[in-house]
């Protein structure tokens, strides 16, 4: 079975995000890019499928700072092939990215494509379902469990409240992963360093970037930030009275 996993790097929310001088995009100067958490789960799910039933796992990622580490870490977990797509991806929307990787994914002839169900910087949909449109493959998202047998896959789709729908999906198909069946495994730094010496990352170039379909942003801004709590002081009686007042204001009493 041939599994292709798409991995994206997204802004790390631990760092402070600021808007650049144009007022329309994120300032990239201090931006730290890390692997999209859901793509990390997609990688884990792919490796699990390989461990269970045998498969060739290829990880495809776009060339952004930090991508080599992401790919070598995937190799250390068990990925067989690593492909990096080169191009200038700053400010490029998901429609363009989906079109850019269509050719490579087609060439790989996957049975199953796994990718994270969403990324924190998505403004024009997510990569998975967009690619499904380009490749005319079925797409199901919010997946938390996958099994494959005889050319068909069974996927567990999550709904709110913990409800799960078990679906039969004909392959080839794209699945948007919400959570792998186990949390992404840890890889020792020494193992990743070893992969850097022994694995190779294949390179492909993206054909021109076609952004049609994405929105035009006229303004990016930060919502009003909260401030430190208003502190209530006094005796227990006084504080309790103030709290009851607040409860009343909020309509619960």
């Amino acid at each position, binding site marked *: 079975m041939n599994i292709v996993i798409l991995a994206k790097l997204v802004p790390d929310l631990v760092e402070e995000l600021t808007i650049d001088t144009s007022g329309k995009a994120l300032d990239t100067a201090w931006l730290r890019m890390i692997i999209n958490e859901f793509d990390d789960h997609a990688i884990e799910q792919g490796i699990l499928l390989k461990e269970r039933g045998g498969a060739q796992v290829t990880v495809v990622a776009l060339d952004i700072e930090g991508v080599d580490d992401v790919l070598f870490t995937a190799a250390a977990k068990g990925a067989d092939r690593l492909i990096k797509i080169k191009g200038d991806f700053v400010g490029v929307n998901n429609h363009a990215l989906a079109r850019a990787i269509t050719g490579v994914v087609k060439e790989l002839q996957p049975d199953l494509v796994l990718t994270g169900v969403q990324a924190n910087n998505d403004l*024009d949909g997510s990569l998975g379902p967009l690619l499904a*449109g380009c490749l005319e493959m079925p797409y199901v998202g*919010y997946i938390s469990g996958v099994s494959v047998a005889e050319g068909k896959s069974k996927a567990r789709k999550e709904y709110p409240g913990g409800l799960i*729908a078990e679906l039969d999906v004909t392959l080839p198909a794209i699945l948007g992963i919400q959570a792998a069946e186990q949390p992404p495994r840890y890889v020792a730094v020494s193992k990743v360093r070893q992969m850097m010496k022994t694995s190779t990352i294949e390179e492909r170039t993206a054909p021109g970037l076609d952004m*049609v379909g994405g929105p035009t942003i006229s303004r990016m801004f930060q919502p009003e930030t909260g401030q430190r709590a*208003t*502190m209530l002081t006094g005796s227990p009686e006084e504080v*309790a009275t103030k709290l009851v007042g607040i409860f009343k204001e*909020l309509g*619960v009493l």
Partner: protein
Amino acid sequence: MNQDIYVVIEHLRGQVAEISCVMLAGAHELAKDMGGSVVAVLLGHNAQGLVGNPSASSGQFLAADKVLYIDHPALADFTSDAYQKALANLISRDQPRAVLFGSTSIGTDLASTLSIKLGLPMISSCRSFSPGGKFVSQICGGKIMAEGDLPGLTALVTMVPGGYKAEQGMGTQSPPITQVETPALESLRVTLAKYVEPESGDVDITKEPILVSVGRGIQNKDNIVLAEDLAKALGGAVSGSRPVIDQGWLTTTRLVGKSGKSVKPKIYLALGISGAPEHVEGITNSDTIIAINTDPVAPIFGVAKYGSEIDLFDLIEVLTEKVKQSKGG
């Protein structure tokens, strides 16, 4: 092309999802600028009844100017392939000004693929619309907002909750229902095998309007009853942070935080909780957080709206008493 705003109604096992009403509210806002009607698009099988009783609140109807209803056995339960094909037909035929989808397990299975398939522009994570036909979307965990003009063709938009209240999308009149021609839905590549029910536990803290939450400061199991008394008086439930669950003073169904649940009560009263990030992660959707902690540098004060350094043991019984009095009990 018309100036109508279409809203794809989401429903699951006979219940209309709250996001549908939020989207209808948004659609009305947008329709003011666009000049068209708000059209609810309902796909299902023998599902006309869903137009009334949205979110199981009786006597309420979907607040739309009209409903377009597509009936087919393959649409009885949501599956991406069937719904996509049905919607593709409808959107191509009608070419509305915009189609709103939920940014959910249902909506996100549809919008992006339709965007490519039909060559239509798409916007995701939209929270609200502002005057002049503008959308406002949120990204990066809500830390960044992006605004722009609604694109000129039929715009496909996925919406997140937060900008409108569901009540604004419910009405007292039943809108007229027009049944649309049933499309051919064959060779479907995604089919439903079965549903798997979630585990039922005791209280579902994610549904409680008021949570009285305890941390290490509660000190021992015997003191939990103080929190229970207060919760009962307020009409809520007790939850806790990790150390309390670790100690076995509360069951894991009450755990709030990274390894537990994300809660969104009206009031989250944190007693003796320091506010470590793993816990705070689970409470950021609360309407109002009130924190009681004797430690002035407890991180919880950075996310709470109100706080007090008073000792929770000095406060709790007095507070319970006052709440009871206020309710006349």
